[in-house]
């Protein structure tokens, strides 16, 4: 009995309490994240998961609709689910959402006038870099091929 008393000393009780608290908090957040929806089959569930992963939660904007615990995200998940049940396609559901929340709700920005720089900006930067390298390399190889023609003072620049 003495051993048992020692086992459940006040310090261990605190530990047990903390663990229980952690477990309850954890399970509570899990319960929130997976608001169970009555899917017809596994394919429908996979489609729902794939679709909500492409949609942004408008409250916690770094989270997708699939991951977010925000009440608005739960409401929107329910709406997406109901529209899937009504036979709407993914494109139609996205259209329904962008009519209310603009392209902001999509993680994949559509290509239009305002997003041209976003889509092609990186490519332009890479092409500009490639052009600069090409010009520099060609200038240097010419300078090496014709060392006598090298103008004085140019040596300084070769760093």
């Amino acid at each position, binding site marked *: 009995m003495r051993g048992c008393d020692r086992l459940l000393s006040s310090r261990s009780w605190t530990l047990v309490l903390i663990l229980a608290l952690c477990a309850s908090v954890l399970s509570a957040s899990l319960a929130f994240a997976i608001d169970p929806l009555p899917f017809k089959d596994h394919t429908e569930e996979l489609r729902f998961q794939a679709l909500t992963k492409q949609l942004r939660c*408008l409250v916690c904007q770094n989270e997708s609709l699939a991951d977010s615990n925000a009440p608005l995200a739960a409401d929107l998940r329910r709406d997406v689910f109901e529209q899937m049940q009504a036979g709407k396609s993914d494109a139609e559901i996205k259209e329904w959402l962008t009519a*209310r929340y*603009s392209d902001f709700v999509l993680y994949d920005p559509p290509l239009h006038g305002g997003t041209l720089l976003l889509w092609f900006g990186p490519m332009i930067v890479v092409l500009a870099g490639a052009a600069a390298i090409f010009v520099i390399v060609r200038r240097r190889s010419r300078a090496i091929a014709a060392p006598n023609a090298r103008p004085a003072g140019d040596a300084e620049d070769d760093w």
Partner: protein
Amino acid sequence: MNARLLPLAGFVLVLALLGFGIWWSQYHDPREVPSPLIDKPAPTFALPVFDDPPKTFGTKELAGEPYLLNVFASWCFACRDEHPILMREGKRLGVKLVGFNYKDEPADAKRWLAQFGNPYDIIVADVSGDVAIDFGVTGAPETFLVDAHGVIRYKYISPITPEVIATELLPRIAKLKEASR
């Protein structure tokens, strides 16, 4: 051009880009969701009247007059900053002020209004938040200015300040009144 100055030019370019980013973010909140509903008809709704739930009130009753729809909730901290301003300035706006109680417990909202006062001409309750989704609401407070034809003319996200009323709301309301005259 002296090739030695090239890295410096690149550095200045990057610096200018970063400076522009800082300047830009002073005036633009990157988290703010732009509303595609501006200059589009407000979604039709008929919601329970807050202090008389069997009755409904909505776009049908509001047709023909401009109004300001203010999304609020007792759980919304920022609404507490906004509330005294609505209490003080609400009657001077010159349009009907419609309170939109968003995803709230009626008892909590009642207590909140009893404590801080009721600046609204009428309050509708959207407990499920479905109508709010049609309006593209992402949280509270948000404010919509709707004209006499039921078209959303302006949306303001975050608490209204006296400056917002003076510089954004009143000029727009005056213009709406002029147009309907």
